[in-house]
């Protein structure tokens, strides 16, 4: 921890999230002369990519190395923002940022005032349901990485890494480097499409990273199965193996290609969901991103559609840690300028060009690893789709075919799918894609609207001024 104690005094800028985007944004704004507080849910800064043990050295983004600047930044770790509101709509523009302590201190609620808000809340894994995916031993790829990076603990002894996208390679690599064993990497798409983007890969400096991943898999003799999918997870109280099948371009399993692989752990991940809770609360314009998920719409300055609210990193569309850092710097600089401070960045036009190039590459990557629909064939009537409320696929299908539900919202009201602890963060994509009217901006945005982002004491909910969120 560094900087001033958090008190009732107003900050120029509150940054939500201490990953690459948030830390870069805070540094840029503070360097320009703004007072900055970062609020982050994790015990220590770093976000997902730079997650580290609590006793490890403090995370500093590349190039953000003036410790005098960091001493002016207050980092409030182990603290979650559960709601944001606009206290003053005038030219002063004051935001109220409502926070809650971690799970040990969850009754500790507080209010921080800020003139500007930078949303850098990152993203989380996008799993899809499959029979047996609720067994202990099935986890997301990001979850497996978090165990390794944050605690030095392997997710299991013999792991199948499944889903789609280059992140599967990063997960497998992390397990191998930590001394674990990977039984197979199971990729639903055919990354041969990536060849078309070879020059882009080189251009954004990703070719070397990809080569290292592939070398690592080869050295450890880990099979990389393209156009394959895990269609069933076996086990009684924990995972004992998975069934794989070859799939066509729509991810439908090819009959007769089933094969059993022994494993005690399965990681799942079909890309990521941008964490858009707070911008959705404030009414910021959202858009469907290249990976068919939601993202906050931002302009060239990383400004959202709501005056005074900026966003950087994965919340503006999943694009990786390097892009997140650059977006953070640009957001921090734009916020500083809006508060009449000079830009702290030496070559902003060059940073903007890098950002645009990396964003274009991220979008191309998302197109090379699309989300297809064949996974729906696997679901049996008793396959749990909503893990919190334990809603099986059969009840969701019944709501659609017998009760006439066309969209995820109606299914939710009829079945409780998406109404539990996680508020649909895990199942809303699957529920949406099971509906006749799916993949719409409106439908996805409704599912992502959470007036309170995490559970808080009832009294704290009563304090939230929902009306304030409307632009005056």
């Amino acid at each position, binding site marked *: 921890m560094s900087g001033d104690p958090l008190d009732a005094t107003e900050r120029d800028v509150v940054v939500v999230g201490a990953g690459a985007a948030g830390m870069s944004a805070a540094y840029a704004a503070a360097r320009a002369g703004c007072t900055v507080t970062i609020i982050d849910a994790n015990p220590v800064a770093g976000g997902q990519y730079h997650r580290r043990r609590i006793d490890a050295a403090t995370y500093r983004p590349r190039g953000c190395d003036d410790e005098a600047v960091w001493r002016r930044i207050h980092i409030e770790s182990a603290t979650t923002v559960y709601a944001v509101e606009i206290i003053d709509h005038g030219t002063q523009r004051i935001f109220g940022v409502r926070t809650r302590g971690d799970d*040990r201190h969850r009754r500790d609620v507080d209010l921080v005032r800020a003139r500007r808000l930078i949303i850098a809340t990152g993203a*989380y894994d996008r799993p899809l349901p499959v029979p047996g995916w*609720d067994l*202990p*031993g099935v986890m*997301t790829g*990001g979850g497996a990485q978090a*165990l390794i990076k944050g*605690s030095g603990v392997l997710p299991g002894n013999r792991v199948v890494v499944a889903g789609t996208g280059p992140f599967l390679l990063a997960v497998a690599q992390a397990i191998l480097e930590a001394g674990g064993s990977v039984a197979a990497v199971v990729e639903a798409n055919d990354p041969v499409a990536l060849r078309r983007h070879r020059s882009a890969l080189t251009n954004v400096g990703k070719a070397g990273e990809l080569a290292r991943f592939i070398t690592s898999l080869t050295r450890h003799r880990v099979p990389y199965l393209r156009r394959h999918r895990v269609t069933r997870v076996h086990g009684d109280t924990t995972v004992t193996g998975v069934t794989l099948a070859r799939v066509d371009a729509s991810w439908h399993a090819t009959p007769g290609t089933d094969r059993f692989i022994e494993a005690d752990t399965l990681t799942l991940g079909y890309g990521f969901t941008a964490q858009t809770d707070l911008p959705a609360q404030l009414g910021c314009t959202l858009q469907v991103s290249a990976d068919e998920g939601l993202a906050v719409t931002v302009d060239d300055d990383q400004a959202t559609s709501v005056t005074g609210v900026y966003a950087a990193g994965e919340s503006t569309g999943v694009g990786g840690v390097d892009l997140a850092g650059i977006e953070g710097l640009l957001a921090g600089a734009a916020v500083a300028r809006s508060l009449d401070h000079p830009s702290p960045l030496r070559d902003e036009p060059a940073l903007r060009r890098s950002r645009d190039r990396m964003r274009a590459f991220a979008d191309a990557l998302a197109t090379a690893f699309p989300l297809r629909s064949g996974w729906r064939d696997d679901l049996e009537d008793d396959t749990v789709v909503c893990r919190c409320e334990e809603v099986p696929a059969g009840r969701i299908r019944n709501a659609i075919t017998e009760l006439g539900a066309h969209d995820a919202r109606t299914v939710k009201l009829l079945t409780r799918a998406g109404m539990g602890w996680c508020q649909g963060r895990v199942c809303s994509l699957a529920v949406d894609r099971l509906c006749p009217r799916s993949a719409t901006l409106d439908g996805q945005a409704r599912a992502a609207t959470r007036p309170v982002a995490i559970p808080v004491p009832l009294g704290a909910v009563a304090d939230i001024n929902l009306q304030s969120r409307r632009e005056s």
Partner: protein
Amino acid sequence: MPEIIIDGRAVTVADGVTVAAALMSEGIRSWRTTRIAGNPRGVFCGMGVCFDCLVTLNGEPNVRACITPVEPGDVIDSQQGTGHDGGVS
């Protein structure tokens, strides 16, 4: 290295780990059963999003094991159902 108690058993775990990692390093993969079907659950998202890894910590139910660091003297109990119906083992 913090000493903690897991389901009544005293263990020593590595410094700076989460409650979930402490449980997993003891070979425990599930520490909760669900409200309706009573099915076992453990870590799923690993980053505080899914609430699958809920555990009873120092008598307080429904704590996310994956994002809560262990502190010396912690008493960790697996939980059943809502965590409020005396289901602590």
